[in-house]
């Protein structure tokens, strides 16, 4: 259920691996080491983009796999392994953010990722300095724009545009209704567009 954007945006490098990986998720989860190797980057980047702290993202990703390992017997294969793990990640992030809100005195994030650093993680080091600067600026703009979204809007936005998940998968991962996902996505896109438009002016 991909929109026109998927046609014009670059194809996701991960989407090519998903079909071979998710042929039989129930048997796949038995090889937990392989599951971790395959899904670690995906959960890590989602969590990092959600909590914006590198050390916390590493810890929470580890927690997610611990939870998944302990709860692997409960995984019946009703959803894909990707969706199931993403649901664990979403709940872990939500719990962390709720706890952080309670710790109102804790203001300093020790390893918070500054937006400028994100831009330095460029996909292709051989690009020209001009192009590099442009990409850094673009990445910085999206990173900042997503920071301003509400937790739910950011979650659905990241799942859709960073993880390339379709609406049905997002519904399964977030436990929201389809209409709620559509509303959050619409608001998120509108807010990010507004922010990006402001940056371009």
């Amino acid at each position, binding site marked *: 259920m991909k929109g026109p*954007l998927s046609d014009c945006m670059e194809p996701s490098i991960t989407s090519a691996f998903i079909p071979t990986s998710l042929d039989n998720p129930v048997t796949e989860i038995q090889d937990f080491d392989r599951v971790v190797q395959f899904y670690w980057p995906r959960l890590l980047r989602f969590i990092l983009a959600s909590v914006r702290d590198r050390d916390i993202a590493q810890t929470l990703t580890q927690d997610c796999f611990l939870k998944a390992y302990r709860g692997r017997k409960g995984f019946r294969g009703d959803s894909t392994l990707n969706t199931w793990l993403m649901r664990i990640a979403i709940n872990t992030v939500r719990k962390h953010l709720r706890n952080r809100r309670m710790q109102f005195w804790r203001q300093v994030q020790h390893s918070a990722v500054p937006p400028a650093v994100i831009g330095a993680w460029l996909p292709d080091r051989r690009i020209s300095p001009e192009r590099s600067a442009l990409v850094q600026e673009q990445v910085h703009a*999206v990173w900042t724009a997503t920071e301003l979204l509400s937790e739910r809007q950011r979650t659905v936005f990241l799942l859709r545009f*960073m993880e*390339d998940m379709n609406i049905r998968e997002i519904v399964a991962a977030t436990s929201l209704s389809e209409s709620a996902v559509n509303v959050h996505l619409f608001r998120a896109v509108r807010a990010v567009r507004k922010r990006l438009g402001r940056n*371009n002016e």
Partner: protein
Amino acid sequence: MSNHLSQDQLSMWILGRSTSEELRHGRECPECRAELARFETPVSSFRSVMQEWSDQENAPRTEELSALLRRPQATLNSSWRWVAVGAVALLLIGIPTYRRGIDTAVSLPPVINDTTDAKADALLMDAVNAHLSRTIPAPMEPIMALIPAPEDITRQGGTK
């Protein structure tokens, strides 16, 4: 009035929820196409950069992972935490109530004992009075029983 896509229509286009007419317009109109690219290009760069970065971040190795998975759960899970909180709350409420109960129990017995003691005292006093009001010593009472009382003598017509 502009024939271009509105801001909301552009957002709907990005989400793939446009009508076929809007879809065609978004593909053909250079201005709307440029407007859409303002979103698509940075988001695409963001996704590529994040994927590139996360692919370089190594997942724990097998031995690290095994040690990690064998590690006992350090913290209580949320349900047990709630049970613990409930137990503490019960103790906090229960202990003062229990102590108040004991205090009441301690203060009540003297009232009951007072009544009991008063009755016992009254009985004892009766016994003491009865003992003191005897006209003859107690060992002589069986002998006195053989002697008719003055009333009995009068009823029988007296003695000479």
